[in-house]
């Protein structure tokens, strides 16, 4: 097992800058003028805070903790550090940009969408993730991604932060390419 830094603060900020540009174009193409943004605790919120600022989104940033919606609750129990979900705008008929740090299985996004619908029926959800990686278990794909690093099945990538932001990889890169 090796633990190594994959990307440092400034490079990640550059990446987010690029994601903001693509998100702006994406929303324009979809004729979405006044989106609201929600970040998923914890890493997704850090990315969302910067995107929210860059895109000058008017409604305050929403934050979701999906602990109460996880599908593995009965296997791993309650998250000991659950934080309150706060959505400080009306979800009903609102176009929403949902932000997370890493998408792998897609289960977190499934849980987040279920929770969002318990706040109201959104007009649409656009999914933005900093990192996309292999391992999808559900038919959920991001609309906008920052980067798709070629990771082996045994490797895990994590965003640490909030200041500085660091992308960390741990695990064995040995069978990279077999995936």
């Amino acid at each position, binding site marked *: 097992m090796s633990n190594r830094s994959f990307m440092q603060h400034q490079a990640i900020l550059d990446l987010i800058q690029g994601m903001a540009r693509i998100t702006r174009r994406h929303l324009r193409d979809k004729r979405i003028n006044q989106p609201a943004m929600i970040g998923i605790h914890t890493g997704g919120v850090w990315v969302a805070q910067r995107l929210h600022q860059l895109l000058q989104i008017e409604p305050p940033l929403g934050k979701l*903790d999906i*602990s*109460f*919606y996880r599908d593995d*609750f*009965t*296997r*791993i*129990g*309650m998250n*000991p*550090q*659950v*934080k*309150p*979900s*706060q959505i400080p705008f009306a*979800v*009903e008929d609102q176009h929403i940009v949902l932000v997370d740090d890493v998408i792998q299985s897609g289960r977190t996004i499934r849980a987040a969408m*279920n*929770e969002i*619908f*318990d*706040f*109201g029926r959104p007009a649409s959800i656009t999914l933005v993730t900093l990192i996309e990686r292999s391992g999808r278990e559900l038919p959920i794909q991001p609309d906008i991604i920052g980067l798709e690093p070629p990771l082996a099945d045994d490797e895990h990538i994590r965003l640490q932060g909030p200041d500085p932001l660091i992308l960390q990889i741990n695990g064995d890169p040995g069978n990279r390419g077999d995936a």
Partner: protein
Amino acid sequence: MSYEQLQTDEQGRLRHFLSIEGFRREQLLQILDTAESFAMLPGRQVKKVPLLRGKIITNLFFENSTRTRTTFELAAKLLSADVINFNMDVSATSKGETLLDTLRNIEAMHSDMFVVRHSASGAAHFIARHAAPGVSIINAGDGCHAHPTQAMLDMFTIRRHKGDFTPLRIAIVGDVQHSRVARSQIMALNILGVSEVRVIAPRTLLPADVRTLGVHVFHDLEQGLKDVDVVIMLRLQHERMDNALLPSAHEYFQLYGLTAERLEYAKPDAIVMHPGPINRGVEITSEVADGPQSVILQQVSYGIAIRMAVMSMALGNSSGEQGS
């Protein structure tokens, strides 16, 4: 088996919630933090979360209590569990069934959790020791022993209003001797590290060993209330008068009833709490109970969030063991 061993698994995670005894500060804080997230739910369009979908929770009440049973039932339903209510007061035990037989019968109905209230101290503990593995027990009040979810909702209320526990001076007023709520509160307050816990009561309503609980004892209400941050009133039960522990409700009110004038001895921003149901004009005046310093109704709302936290933590961990 001690409470400590019985209530948590090897990793210190909640399995049963029977008594405050044996818990560490971080564990109690984790319950409060989890409840904080559940307290946000009423602001949403859908107030339920799907956490305990498919679980069955049985309310096993051998002693009447509308309020506690209802908040447990509501908490379970907001977690998407299915709830069965057994009012054992008028059920099997009156037909001569033993507690263990009752337990086995309800276990056969595949319940994942029992919420137990019983007039005998230690009943929930007894059930926890004999319950099937994977079944969690929550104590909703046993005799004069403990009422841990009530104590935790009181801690939640105090933290919401006062923030940090450490500088606080807290007075508990009334029948400490017969109060399972008071015992659990005193334990929780000391574990959470408040500056001082006072109990204020006539000698006949204090347990002989009260000082060993880590409290300062006062027999004079005004002296005891001086400079406190929180006043917790206890319910005076009428049967205490029948047992000749008190001359009359009127005389009790004269000496220990909380009036607006007496409340002035406490800090100006002191909050007034009461586990309910309140006896207006016996332990508290309407002026105080309905006044700006009273947080009595908030306690009821917070009770739902605390019970959701305890139920979901215990059930999440118990099924974790089964699944692996």
